[in-house]
């Protein structure tokens, strides 16, 4: 299998799905001729006929709102919002429009839209308004599915499923992972929304890790091998959440660390921890440990960013601090 960056794997998914289905189109700021701000959509403007790749004004609400309207009228739009940080400007369009129509209108309508956005990479030192991981906000909105891209392989398969899904999906790509390369199959494949991936089996402790934290956790698991046996799970989609896989693992190991780059306060890692504790309670040796950002905006200066954003050291500490490991 050839190696591909996550950027190119996503680009492939977009290209394949747009070829497959004429009702798809791409819409966002600079996604057209310029090829997107992280070059993810490069080449698509030339590949497809006029109008399939639409550059917009800087209008996040209209990008997402129009996608909701287009989704109801036979299109399958794929919208891009440059950074998840800007999703606040389109929060109503996700929460009160796209996410509610199916239900509110009695169940028959579908709103098959995908909103791709970038969980800002704090490591790029773009500071507090361009660095946040914000999938937690959207997990709280009924009717909306929430997917996290981590590996090139998964990103491609998940994005294809997201585009084909008849519900609104918010698809988060982590900025610092675009250049990561890994093997990606040549042939077309999808990964169902709602299936966690057990990346590595283990007996002593379960680590549930998303996006960049997944890579940190993988390194840690590798290093600890022989000493502590880590079972590493990437949930991949957080809504729906594959609680079954997570709970099963928790029951086996009895110890769980959940690592996610979002803020911990009412954040996704805390929620996942709660679900596991709820369902695996009588099998747990210790409370589920949460690794994330502790109620702090992302600062600019590298030593400050490093202090705030969790890394492999924090995951290792959480594992080692588990009682009786």
């Amino acid at each position, binding site marked *: 299998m050839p190696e591909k960056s996550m950027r190119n794997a996503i680009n492939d998914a977009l290209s394949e799905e747009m070829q497959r289905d004429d009702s798809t189109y791409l819409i966002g700021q600079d996604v057209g001729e310029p090829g997107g701000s992280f070059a993810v959509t490069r080449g698509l403007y030339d590949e497809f006929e006029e109008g399939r790749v639409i550059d917009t004004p800087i*209008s996040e*609400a209209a990008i997402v*709102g129009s996608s909701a309207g287009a989704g109801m009228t036979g299109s399958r739009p794929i919208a891009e919002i440059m950074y998840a940080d800007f999703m606040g400007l389109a929060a109503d369009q996700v929460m009160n429009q796209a996410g509610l*129509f199916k239900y509110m209108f009695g169940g028959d309508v579908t709103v098959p839209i995908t909103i791709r956005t970038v969980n800002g990479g704090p490591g790029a030192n773009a500071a507090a308004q361009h660095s946040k991981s914000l999938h937690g906000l959207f997990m709280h909105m009924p009717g909306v599915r929430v997917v996290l891209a981590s590996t090139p392989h998964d990103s491609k398969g998940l994005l294809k499923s997201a585009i084909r899904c008849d519900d609104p999906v918010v698809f988060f790509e982590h900025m610092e992972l675009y250049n990561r390369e890994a093997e990606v199959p040549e042939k077309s494949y999808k990964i169902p929304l709602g299936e966690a991936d057990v990346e590595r089996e283990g007996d002593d402790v379960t680590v549930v890790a998303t996006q960049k934290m997944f890579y940190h956790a993988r390194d840690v698991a590798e290093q600890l091998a022989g000493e502590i046996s880590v079972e590493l799970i990437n949930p991949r989609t957080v809504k729906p959440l594959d609680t079954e896989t997570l709970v099963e693992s928790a029951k086996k190991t009895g110890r769980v660390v959940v690592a996610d780059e979002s803020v911990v306060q009412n954040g996704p890692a805390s929620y996942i921890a709660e679900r596991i504790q709820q369902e695996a309670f009588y099998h747990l040796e210790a409370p589920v440990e949460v690794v994330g950002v502790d109620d702090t905006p992302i600062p600019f200066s590298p030593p400050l960013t490093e202090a705030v954003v969790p890394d492999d050291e924090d995951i290792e500490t959480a594992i080692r601090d588990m009682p009786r490991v």
Partner: protein
Amino acid sequence: MPNVVAEHADRLVDQFREMVLVREFETRVSSLFEDNELPGFVHLYIGQEAIATGACWGLKDDDYITSTHRGHGHSIAKGLDPDRMMAELFGKETGYCGGKSGSMHIADVDQGMLGANGIVGAGPSLAVGAGLSIQQNDEDRVCLSFFGEGAMAEGVVHESMNLAGVQDLPVVFVCENNQYGEMTPAQDQHSVEGFEARGDVYDMPAETVDGMSVQSVHDAATRATERARNGGGPSLLICETYRYHGHYEGDPMVYRTEAEVEEWRERDPVDTLESSLLESGHVDGDDVAAIRAEASERIDEAVEFARASEYPDPESAFEGVYSEEL
């Protein structure tokens, strides 16, 4: 307007019939609400009938509209069935949305009605999306987007008109200026004189229309929809009108005088049209009485239908959130 009436007598009689039906629907809703037969709250369209009727008249079944919290008139004008609308207001399973929407979210996407909407200013961005669908597939359709003058202040309305202008979308923006947004006068919320200048901002034709005259709205809307159908891009119509009832049923209406209401009533779209038709001799008193009786009966039926319908199964409350169960 005698000449105009003569020229379009048949259509105007039909439009009169529809406007009477809308008025009857709304008047009945008002009393049902007062009698506590309807849950939630309702915003009535009484006074604005000429706009929905005039603007939707030339639309095809597969054209689209977006609506607002004040959407009953738009729904009827787009061809929705008063039975199922009324059942929805009652929260019954036979309602358009199985009792999930109530007054504020009635929708029938198959009929091109993309939904009443409880978020002020939400409709225009949906209309832009419908416009994008039409443009993508080169369809012979348009989308009309109704919104109140209060919505003119919402950012997303601005974004949507700008995007429609830049992309030359087949969307007609229909602003119904009924002089108030809730309890605050329009002129305290905007430079009302500046509404038309938005046409220059978004590079689309903009026109102010007498929203109490179905003929005027009809004419302007026809021009705008034809232009949109022919690839000429979006337009903006500002329709001057008034709502006689409160913002919501139950509104004490301390913010305006009876005299002001009376002044507008003199321009009532239904009554003035009736007078014109009578004057021009295209209908007589019996015709009018028949039309009014017919509307009343139609709404009787709708109320009966709604009353006789069942409440939805509580279990259905958990269905339809996703396209397949998560």
